């Protein structure tokens, strides 16, 4: 298998895009990525796109063909494939693009993610997102997506010494980072009180523990490492690409507040990259809820179970800390257009490794992206490094 490198990245503003349609969101991100890579549309061999639920959000399936068409690539008849694993759809798209290049089948591949969520009302939105979990045996009983993570949080806080303030600090930190990110949906700083005084959504999770509803798209271009310097002076190498699954329903997990798929994917990724935890300089993890970031840091093995709250409180995961987590602002502050999130994580790590992250720049040569579908039924981990 061939080594693979990222040569270009692009991302739309993450926000409520009232004036922009699904297809134009993708066109904007794709155009930015190709420009950044110095690649013309005619050079693109294949396209992979992550999208969770255009079928329900905009009543459109067949997303791969749609975006190839509006990107002006239809007459080249390139393969264009949509992949879906709920909130991990973007991570999957990146991984399939990496496999296509690694296999030798394709040379220049665009991996993209897109979601247009604000075209439906809150009720339909909540119901659509519940499709990421088990519709028949969780949703039927009245489980919402925040409700499932709330049950993780209650289990966790019952067993470990996580304080409500430590949990809130995850959101405070991610808003601090988001405030420094031009593409972030929320750019205002908040305090622990902002979180604690926000309305309860599903006990103990409040509104500011939850990532928002967002429209957005992101795209990256990958090529064989051996060809990367033809396009750019700052290629970023894909050191590991791993995907793992687990039970669709939270109630069937071995341990309610450990994501075994994160544990498995994290271990395999470090082995694939031949790296140890201390070699990783930054993390983009899947903080769809504050508790999810806590679990992610632990389940990836960066500290023992029960310690991530304290690390967060002590600032270890802040921009200036030893292990910056979610420098982009994470799903919480940067926003969470479901299918785009996994690609935005790659965008952020590449931007950091290249040293182009502006006010949120950290010292990073190697970064890890962690993208979760549902409550942990799919996890995708990528490790990227400069070269």
């Amino acid at each position: 298998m061939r080594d693979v490198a990222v040569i270009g990245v692009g991302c739309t503003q993450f926000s409520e895009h009232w004036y922009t349609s699904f297809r134009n969101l993708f066109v904007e991100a794709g155009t930015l990525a190709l420009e950044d890579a110095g690649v013309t549309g005619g050079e693109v061999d294949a396209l992979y796109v992550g999208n969770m639920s255009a079928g329900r959000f905009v009543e459109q399936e067949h997303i791969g063909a749609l975006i190839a068409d509006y990107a002006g690539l239809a007459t080249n008849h390139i393969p264009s494939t949509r992949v879906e694993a709920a909130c991990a759809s973007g991570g999957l798209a990146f991984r399939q693009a990496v496999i296509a290049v690694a296999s030798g089948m394709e040379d220049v591949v665009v991996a993209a993610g897109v979601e247009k969520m604000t075209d439906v009302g809150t009720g339909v939105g909540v119901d659509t997102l519940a499709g990421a979990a088990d519709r028949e045996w969780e949703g039927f009983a009245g489980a919402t997506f925040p409700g499932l993570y709330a049950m993780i949080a209650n289990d966790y806080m019952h067993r470990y010494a996580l304080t409500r303030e430590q949990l809130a600090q995850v959101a405070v930190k991610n808003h601090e980072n988001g405030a420094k990110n031009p593409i972030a949906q929320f750019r205002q700083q908040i305090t622990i009180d902002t979180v604690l005084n926000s309305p309860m959504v599903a006990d103990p999770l409040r509104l500011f523990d939850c990532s928002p509803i967002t429209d957005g798209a992101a795209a990256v271009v990958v090529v064989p490492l051996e060809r990367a310097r033809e396009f750019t002076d700052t290629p970023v190498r894909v050191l590991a690409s791993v995907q793992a699954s687990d039970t669709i329903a939270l109630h069937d997990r071995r341990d309610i507040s450990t994501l075994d798929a994160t544990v498995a994917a994290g271990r395999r990724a470090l082995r694939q990259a031949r790296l140890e935890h201390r070699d990783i300089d930054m993390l983009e993890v899947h903080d769809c809820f504050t508790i999810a970031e806590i679990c992610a840091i632990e389940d990836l093995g960066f500290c023992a179970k029960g310690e991530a709250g304290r690390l967060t409180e002590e600032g270890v995961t802040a921009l200036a800390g030893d292990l910056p987590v979610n420098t982009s602002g994470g799903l919480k502050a940067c926003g969470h257009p479901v299918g785009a999130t996994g690609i935005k994580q790659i965008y952020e790590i590449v931007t950091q490794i290249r040293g182009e992250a502006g006010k949120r720049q950290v010292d990073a040569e190697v970064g890890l992206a962690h993208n979760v579908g549902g409550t942990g039924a799919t996890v995708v981990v990528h490790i990227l490094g400069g070269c």
Partner: protein
Amino acid sequence: MSVSRFWRKIPQRYNLIGTQCTTCGRYFYPPRSLCPDCRRSGTIVEHQFRGEGTIVTYTVIRTASDLFEHTTPYVLAIVRLDEGPNLTAQVVCRPEEARIGMRVKSVFRRIAADGESGVIHYGTKFVPAE
């Protein structure tokens, strides 16, 4: 939820009927037609659960989908049945009453009324049993 999707699982939803793998003895609720441990060598039979169990974790849902919006707040829990498997269900109690480790037993209740399809969904909820 479409009428046929609901109707198909009425015995399971109304009467807590799941399955058991008689090869290894493991119980499944929600029902499974394939045992993850024994796979093709496992023999699966129906099993009616007694309906007693313990709250593993819970939450209080304050914002729900359209179908459940008028019933908020409600307690949602993962309940471990005494026979082994965990399921997700509502617990009929005041939010402040619920706690991890609480013993509960199943009751047959209305779950939601689907305005669109005109169907009322019944199924299993739990009540405190202490």
